[in-house]
């Protein structure tokens, strides 16, 4: 029997490759994109070229034959340098392509996955609406089947949808009410809406606090028609489907948050060694050393948490609670580490040209997206057998 927490050699090589890529290709350029709120097409193209968008998918669909763990490793390394590109990958793979891989028909998989895996196209997932986020069961968007033309007719609005309005966005999978059950509750289904479909309008990008080099938009559907065959998975199973997708996605967000927390450690350690005050490096003060030790401790713990959840997922074991724990913990410590990193950088930490300023701005959303911290606590409490 072997008990071993270390990565297998190929995973370590992947991690190192992405680390190198982030350092060589992303770090020198991302500040400029972020500053101008531009989507970094050239970087995303390179990420596609090295196969990152295909990581967890089989080779027959153009994937890399890896798994969710490999995706998370890549996300952590990207987010160590920048979260905008990391969330572009996370949303593209975990929310955009994964539902098609998990629930799509053979035809849907053949149509979409090869181009999503190569990064030629980006996918998005539209769940949140202006009036419902955490309470996703409250979806108001509707889809009615027009039997005369055999088309879905979609009406409604989605908000805060990542990757939905880039030049390379290929599709958005939206959740919509497609009927009522006997007790009057809404039945929700997922439907694939290709970009450019008539009646589907993408608004201008939001002005965001962070993630400024990623694409987030409001979407509206006004009698938007797509073929009946665009239904993803089973009718009325949309709710169960996205719960599965969100459970997995939490592990990915946790890896991303761990990367941000690690980036804070990286930047702060080197700054503390060089910045002089009172005749010595600020890192010679125990007050600073202890901050850094705590930052390192939190990051390490967060990493163990996501890796545990991801390995449960890989082994087909229940992972709902572990994914929620990992997401909750790592997002909260990412915010803490970003605050401490900014503090260690003094006034420079408040200047946008310093990576830690970007980390600070990018950290808060981690406690909100893909299930707020409150929602994670609700999930964990439920797993402990507590009910309202």
């Amino acid at each position: 029997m072997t008990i071993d927490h270390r990565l297998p050699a190929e995973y370590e090589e992947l991690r190192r490759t992405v680390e190198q890529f982030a350092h060589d290709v992303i770090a020198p350029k991302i500040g400029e994109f972020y500053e101008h709120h531009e989507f970094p097409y050239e970087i995303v193209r390179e990420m596609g070229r090295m196969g990152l968008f295909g990581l967890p998918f089989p080779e027959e669909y153009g994937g890399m034959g890896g798994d969710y763990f490999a995706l998370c490793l890549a996300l952590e390394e990207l987010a160590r340098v920048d979260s905008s590109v990391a969330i572009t990958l996370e949303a593209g793979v975990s929310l955009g392509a994964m539902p098609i891989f998990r629930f799509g028909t053979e035809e849907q998989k053949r149509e979409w996955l090869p181009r999503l895996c190569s990064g030629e196209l980006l996918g998005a997932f539209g769940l949140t609406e202006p009036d419902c986020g955490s309470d996703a069961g409250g979806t108001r968007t509707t889809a009615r089947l027009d039997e005369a033309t055999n088309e879905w007719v979609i009406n409604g609005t989605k908000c805060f949808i990542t990757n939905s309005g880039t030049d390379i966005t290929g599709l958005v999978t939206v959740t919509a009410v497609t009927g009522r059950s006997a007790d009057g509750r809404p039945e929700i289904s997922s439907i694939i809406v290709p970009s450019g479909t008539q009646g589907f309008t993408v608004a201008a990008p939001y002005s965001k606090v962070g993630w400024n080099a990623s694409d987030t938009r409001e979407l509206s559907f006004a009698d938007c028609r797509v073929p009946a065959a665009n239904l993803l998975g089973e009718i009325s199973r949309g709710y169960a489907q996205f719960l599965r997708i969100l459970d997995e996605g939490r592990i990915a967000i946790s890896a991303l948050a761990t990367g941000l927390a690690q980036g804070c450690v990286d930047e702060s350690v080197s700054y503390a060694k060089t910045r002089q005050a009172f005749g010595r490096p600020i890192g010679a003060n125990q007050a600073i050393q202890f901050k850094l030790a705590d930052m390192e401790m939190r990051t390490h713990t967060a990493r163990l948490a996501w890796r545990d959840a991801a390995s449960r997922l890989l082994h087909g074991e229940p992972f709902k609670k572990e994914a929620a724990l990992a997401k909750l913990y790592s997002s909260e410590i990412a915010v803490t580490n970003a605050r401490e990193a900014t503090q260690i950088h003094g006034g420079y930490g408040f200047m946008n040209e310093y990576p830690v300023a970007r980390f600070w701005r990018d950290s808060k959303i981690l406690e909100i997206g893909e299930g707020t911290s409150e929602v994670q606590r609700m999930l964990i409490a439920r797993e402990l057998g507590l009910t309202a």
Partner: protein
Amino acid sequence: MSLRIVVAVKYVPDATGDRHFAEDLTTDRDAVDGLLSELDEYAVEQALQIAEEADDAEITVLTVGPEDAKDALRKALSMGADQAVHVEDDALHGTDALGTSLVLAKAIEHTGYDLVVCGMASTDGTMGVLPAMLAERLGVPQVTLLSEVKVEDGKVTGRRDGDAASEQLEAQLPAVVSVTDQSGEARYPSFKGIMAAKKKKVESLDLSDLGIEEDEVGLAGAWTKVDSAAERPARTAGTIVTDEGEGGKQLAAFLAEQKFI
């Protein structure tokens, strides 16, 4: 018939590490991590592109170096090369450029080749002499320092950019080429490539496999002898140009003197 490409790649000490000499004035390779020479990544990339263009091609990556040099081979295999040859022998310690070229040439002949692709120079020795030595030992044409390279109809063609002019060159295969850091960014290995590399063949050879006597290589067989080695002195203060109307000219003169412009 399949186009056989051999790429010579060197495993070098990480340039960002702290590099030192050992007591016998050879590079202390144990003290720092090593990696595939960055300049040789360009050679692997060009070989991959040539192979992608060809109907049928096979790329062998070759290194002469210590046990850890396998890492350099694995990286090249992850990028997409088909197989690898590793020449390793304790007697190689302290081998100079002539000796290395002998070993490489024998290994290339052993493997079989139509085209040998090298980097423009190693990032540690930086002599840039091996491609020429190899061509001489193999008795085939050399087309070196190319920033663009193509293989067509049994010929290799390419462009060499000089300070004042660009030359368009060509040679019949078999031939040796070296490519520069202007030839196009090397790809990053994909996860698929990393997984596939594990299953690819790495052939290990020693000097006797290649019919080379121990005294032809190593410190004893070296034609060059290092008499002394010293650490590079700490950086000295730079030159400060104060602009009193002539600042631009002085800057230009400084840059020209240093051959930057």
